[in-house]
């Protein structure tokens, strides 16, 4: 890593967060969702929308581009914008790139957002409409292999075969995150579940049951990135961007590591921690990409919270509960709060570090890790370390 990168540490901050409600049918356009979340985040920061000089998002399936959202909000001369191709793999890269733009002086106030009508209009993975466009699709779709729950189930099975990871481990994660969601007024699914409920839920793609899968959601979420100096003068407690890192990954067909139970997060993590000058033991709360239960299990290993292959027993020990040594997905995650493709994980980390997470607040949370999809499917991943000043 370049030594110059150390200049990046804590130079920028998240000054505000905003949400639309999470629902199964928003009843409005994706553009409207994006505008509402952007305005809510600006309001939370105590800024005017006219202060915004940058917009950033990412897209796969549904999205609203900055070039639509800007003019829709009367922002006709954005100094910087980003419309990155990619799904959950790049959610955190969007905020990382906004922080770079702000640190470089290209823009001063960038709102990063993700808006999707992912339940009522545009479901992921081709279910109910055409399959996604990628050259690799031709080698999979003819066999009925096309949707994310299938793909992640495939990787989960490999982990189960190699390390003895059990359905009960995945189930405990779902149960724990639902308990967190019960304390989150924003969450779509707030009724507590038991391990028996998990085991009784219907098969989707063995080894995954319904309760292994995240909630396809209509909603939007946004965060305001500005300089740390400016954030200190604003309404909210600033949350510093201590580190932002990007990583590689694997496609379905090509896996240079030849071990599908190790994700790109394992290579990214040392860069990320070094940039922040911290290690896994310094993380007080972790908001980890949970498109499916297994995604969290493998990231607990690859980000160094437990040994390789020990993610399942680690979860089963209660370590990731709100009162455990590493509270994970304190909002309920995609499994129970809603799926806004990563931005809601960043926003939850901000809430925890500001200390305004209500009944689910982790006492004394000072440093948070938040991560993107760990590099399966699209060969990319990204992550942030955030901290309170």
């Amino acid at each position, binding site marked *: 890593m370049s030594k110059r990168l150390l200049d990046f540490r804590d130079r920028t901050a998240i000054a505000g967060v905003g949400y639309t409600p999470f629902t199964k049918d928003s009843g409005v356009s994706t553009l409207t969702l994006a505008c509402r979340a952007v305005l809510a985040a600006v309001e939370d920061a105590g800024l005017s929308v006219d202060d915004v000089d940058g917009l950033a998002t990412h897209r796969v399936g549904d999205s609203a581009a900055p070039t639509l959202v800007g003019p829709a909000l009367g922002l006709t001369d954005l100094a910087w914008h980003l419309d990155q191709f990619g799904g959950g793999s790049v959610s955190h890269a969007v905020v990382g790139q906004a922080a770079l733009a702000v640190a470089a002086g290209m823009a001063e106030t960038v709102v990063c957002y993700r808006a999707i009508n992912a339940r009522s209009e545009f479901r992921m*993975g*081709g*279910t109910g409409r055409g*399959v996604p466009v990628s*050259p*690799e*699709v*031709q*080698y*999979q*779709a*003819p*066999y*009925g*292999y*096309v*949707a994310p729950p*299938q793909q992640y*189930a*495939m*990787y989960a*099975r*490999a982990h189960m*075969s*190699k390390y003895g990871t059990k359905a009960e481990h995945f189930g405990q994660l779902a149960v724990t995150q639902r308990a967190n969601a019960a304390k989150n007024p924003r969450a779509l699914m707030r009724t507590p579940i038991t391990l028996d409920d998990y085991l009784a839920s*219907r*098969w*989707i*793609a*063995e*080894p*995954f049951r319904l309760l292994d899968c995240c909630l396809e959601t209509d909603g939007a979420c946004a965060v305001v990135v500005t300089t740390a100096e400016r954030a200190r003068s604003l309404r909210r407690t600033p949350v510093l961007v201590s580190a932002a890192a990007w990583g590689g990954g694997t496609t*379905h*067909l*090509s*896996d*240079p*590591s*030849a071990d*599908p139970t190790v994700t790109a997060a394992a290579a990214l993590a040392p860069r990320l921690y070094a940039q922040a000058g911290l290690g896994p033991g310094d993380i007080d709360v972790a908001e980890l990409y949970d498109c499916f239960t297994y995604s969290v299990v493998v990231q607990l290993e690859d980000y160094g919270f437990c040994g390789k292959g020990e993610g399942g027993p680690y979860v089963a020990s209660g370590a990731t509960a709100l009162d455990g040594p590493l509270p994970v997905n304190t909002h309920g995650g995609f499994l129970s709060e809603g799926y806004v493709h990563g931005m809601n994980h960043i926003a939850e980390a901000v809430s925890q570090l500001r200390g305004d997470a209500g009944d689910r607040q982790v006492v004394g949370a000072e440093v948070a890790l938040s991560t993107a999809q760990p590099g399966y499917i699209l060969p990319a991943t990204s992550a942030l370390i955030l901290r309170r000043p």
Partner: protein
Amino acid sequence: MTAYRPAFDRDSRQWWERVGRREFAVQECDGCGAARFPARAFCPACRTEAWHWREVEPEGVVESWIVNHQPFMPGLAEPYVVVMVRLAAVPGCFVYGNWRGDRPPEPGERVRAAYRRIDEELTLVDWEPAEDGGNLDTHPARRTSSR
């Protein structure tokens, strides 16, 4: 029938045509000899473009599999099994297909391609237990040259 007809592209068309003749081929780099799949112009090892097709044994080992309990695409009858196969001929390469076995696959099980002719234009590649069976506990990619 198939739920989805693949759209051949300029890199892949010849591969599919060979499958139609029940031939399983991978690209071999003229520069460094590295094998690659799926078809693409550049060798990721030495970054040169010259290559030729090499017919290989359509073999591999089971890395993972799933049992689909809902029709993820219109026209599929569930449950159906998709298997992830570590291709013997290309290190670090996985391929996918439907399972042709009267029992579930086993991790590490040796498998062999089973061609499924859809029509004049399209043949698919499924996977079935290899006749000599047995599990491999070493890297399968190193086992191919002996055949």
